[in-house]
């Protein structure tokens, strides 16, 4: 009987282990209720063959909402792209580059968008930088 239960439980445990990532992140939940923002979360965005990353987007509906979001995220610049490493529980709080886990945050002023990439370890951070470099090189070639 014990063997029977084990045989049936094993695949379920594997399934549970595989599906644990498919859940809403606290950062997304925090902003999902806001009327002046579009919040979105991409689970497991593929950076390369083996590494994926979770991404949260906050897009301001208008310039007033963008101003509010900038103040909340402590962004002082008003053009181009502002990027920083944010604390996992408080993305607006800047942390050192080697702190893990953390958010790799990028605010694109022209699009009124802030993107947060959840960095769990150095492998993920390296893959993120590689993805940036590879695509920039591709764009330059084109």
């Amino acid at each position, binding site marked *: 009987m014990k063997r029977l239960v084990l045989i049936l439980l094993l*695949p379920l445990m*594997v399934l549970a282990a*595989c599906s644990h990532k498919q859940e809403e992140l606290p950062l997304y939940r925090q902003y999902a209720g806001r009327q002046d923002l*579009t919040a979105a979360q991409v*689970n497991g*965005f593929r950076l390369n063959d083996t590494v*994926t990353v979770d991404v949260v*987007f906050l897009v301001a509906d208008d310039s007033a909402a963008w101003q509010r979001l900038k103040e909340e995220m402590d962004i002082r610049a008003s053009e181009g792209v502002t990027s920083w490493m944010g604390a996992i529980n408080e993305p607006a709080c800047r942390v050192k580059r080697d702190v893990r886990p953390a958010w790799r945050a990028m605010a694109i002023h022209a699009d009124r968008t802030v*993107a947060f990439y959840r960095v769990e370890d150095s492998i993920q951070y390296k893959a993120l930088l590689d*993805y940036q470099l590879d695509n920039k090189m591709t764009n330059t070639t084109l």
Partner: protein
Amino acid sequence: MTFESIWEQEERQGLQRRLRQDYPAWLRRRRQKRRTAGGLATVAAIALFAAVALYNNTLTTKDYESVYCNRAGTTDAQWVALAGKTLTRAMI
């Protein structure tokens, strides 16, 4: 020997005889049940493993796992594309 002791002896022997006759049949039935249960469990386990493998396969062939958005009218592809585009626009 009293009548009672003869009666008891016969009863005991009768029970032992019945046990000797019934035990192999009971053993066979138990083996049969276990075999059936084992077979069913194996089939169920194979089906579950196949489902897990298929599920994982769909994950590996996609560029993302799932998307949540608080607004209607947006598509998954739009956000996945933005995830890549944002990285290429940002400074390292």
